């Protein structure tokens, strides 16, 4: 049915060196993205001919998803939203402003809320990994 193992697609030469500019200095994305880019052979950091990956928005929000009959939260939803754009060394836009959003919900019962904050932390880590994977797929598509 036409499926074949995915061939290696090397990053486009314009991404041989990538400088990551993050809007939120506290975000975990730059470090994780730098590691993933290095694994694919790209150099990361300022330098001659470096194309610039600018992260203009990087949000992680936990908000009530379902509220029950007694006005109590029964489910929380974690939404991770990242918006980025990519320009080459002389400023030409390689990737227009793109948003990658991942969300997942978890049950919440205030009578057993011991582990709520650690579940929230774990879900954010997992969503962040999926987000980085999706971002890389977008970078691999840049020719």
């Amino acid at each position, binding site marked *: 049915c*036409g499926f074949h193992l995915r061939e290696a697609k090397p990053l486009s030469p314009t991404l041989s060196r990538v400088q990551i500019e993050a809007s939120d200095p506290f975000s975990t994305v730059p470090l994780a993205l730098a590691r993933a880019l290095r694994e694919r052979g790209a150099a990361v950091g300022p330098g001659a001919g470096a194309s610039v990956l600018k992260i203009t928005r990087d949000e992680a929000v936990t908000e009530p998803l379902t*509220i029950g009959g007694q006005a109590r939260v029964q489910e929380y939803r974690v939404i991770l939203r990242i918006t980025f754009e990519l320009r080459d060394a002389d400023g030409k836009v390689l990737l227009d402003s793109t948003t990658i959003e991942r969300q997942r919900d978890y049950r919440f019962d205030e*009578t057993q809320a011991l582990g709520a904050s650690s579940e929230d932390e774990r879900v954010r880590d997992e969503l962040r990994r999926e987000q980085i994977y999706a971002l890389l797929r977008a970078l691999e598509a840049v020719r």
Partner: protein
Amino acid sequence: ADTCFGALCQSCVAPLFTPNQTLINEGRDTADTHIEADRYQLGKDGQYSANGNVVMQRADQEVKSESATYQTEPPKAAFPAPLSYQDQRMLATAQSGTWSADDGTLLNQVLFQMRDGRGNGRAETASLAGPKSALTRATFTSCDPAHPAWSLAAQKIEIDSDKQVGRAENVRLQLGKVPIFYWPRMSFPTDAQRKTGFLYPQLGSANDSGFDLIVPYYLNLAPNYDATLKPRYIQERGLMLAAETRYLGEASLTEFEFSWLDHDRKADDRRTSFDFRHQQRFGANWFLNADIRDVSDDRYFEDFGDSLSSVATSLLPSSAYLTGRAPSWTFSVGGDRQEVTDPRLPLNVEPYRRLPRATFDYLTPNLSGPQFQLESELVRFSKDGVDGGNRLDLTPAVIWPLERSYGFLRPKLGYRYTAYELDRDIDSSPTRGMPIASLDSGLIFEREANWFGADGTQTLEPRVYALYVPYENQDNLPLFDTQAFTFGWGSLFRDNAFTGADRQIDAKQVTAALTTRYLDDAGLERFRFSLGQIRYLDPPRIALPGTPLRDEPGSAYVADLELNWTKDWTLAATHQYDPAVSATELSSVYVQRHFWDRGVVNVGYRYRRDLFEQVDVSTAIPIKDNWLLIARVNQSLRDDELLEGLAGFEYSTCCIAVRILGRRYVRNIEGDLNNGIYVELEFKGLGSLGRRAEDFLRRAILGYR
């Protein structure tokens, strides 16, 4: 929302005249003054009178008129005839005016427009000196000056363009011609970007608190420090003092909110709340993030929260952590706690305080070959009236990830060691240790595909995750911060079924999962369907007290589907079927459709077995170009009860927005419903008056713009 903020935009307010873009914006006192005219008249006393479309320019200032006289000592120009004036901050036309090198420009019968933002208006006189302009008997609005929907009429308005703040004296706020508010003195931001909360009273009413009025007063204390005082009068409770301050440091942001109701008539008690937030960076790797919150009693949010989600807050989190990050390690130290704010909750349900709590994660930075990994946590748990304790949890591990374009193999062999020092006197330092072995593997198949009318690729990604953890009895271990994870897609690939470290699942299991995605030519995921299940070779024997062991050979099936057809269509669905009870565990479908630029419809259905079954339909329908019909129904099918109903409209032009909403929502644990009428007048560019409907709308109707 309208995109008319920022630079002068034609759609909203036509510029008085087309400004000359060639002027240079600085050095007024060192620049030459040029006066061009058709004819000149040289007076004896060194006076020039120019006639015939006179143009005077100096750096960023330009005046055009029919005639002008210029005297050299002291340098002063007079414009007896109607003129147009322009500088880097303002455009104006006036009946006459004078200019002098030393004390600025004075214009009479003025029509003016700010060049950044859309503030404009009229004035009897306008005296412009650098960034400061003082207007007398002036009106200020962001609407079209010909027929302003609203305007501020004041005896005196002073605008500081650098600080982007206006100050006015005996001011009337007029809706059309009708004055609706009066202030002896007030200040207001002249640009919309600076969200400084609300400058005008917020009014609303609800059957549980009666008339509810907030009268904010904005204090612009310094470019990086401002405060908003928000005294709030609630008919059935009394006068509550509230304030928000914000301080922007060089590498820090500090925000402090508090509210203080000395005597709440209805609750016959003092009601207070505060929220202290502080973020600070130290160099490139270290930063402090603190959010300390407190309320006086557990019904505070019920009585004073203005949105359903704030009313439904049952646990109020506070935390403060110093975190350091580097390519190969992450370290954090601090603490957190959760305060019960739900009257129905017995106090023993309050989660343990984790203070101090330190975590340290390490991963060797090499990009290929085996890597050493360490995850560790040291915590002191404490809770009033209950034995607390310290817990150390270490998981050193060796991982050897093999990543290829066509798949991956991630073996991991670790040893989890957990030790306690408990306050209880018997068996006060139990320990637990066991190896954890896991193998995550997957292949990625691809083929060209043409969906949505464009070329792209479809992937087929089988994934197998094997986990082995020997059993060790853990009944003697306390339960500090451990609970079962909500079962879902993530659970299929986790090496523990519990949050926290008090329980480590024993496992001899293999997860089988399949994902197929469609990526468009830009590599963005437009469709994803995943299906997976855990097969237990031996059913797990570790369970939380009171939960039965599961002897079913397989976990619930998990299916996830997400489709982003175009940027206007989104469909997301999840489903979990549990063969153990041969019933659906979780089922949810959500469809969102954007249309006509600002229109949106959301339809959602959510079901969790024995918990809830709800439908949530919300919409914002644009009618003609200024009107927006808004409606939402959140209905519980299980209890056949309305959770939240809302209907209303928004009329919005480029300078004013009127929102009127009727709302009915569950207010408290007894399930009583609260009816609320919300009226909001938003003067675009100046802040809004009325209950903060827009913000709450954005939460109530996902995608409301």
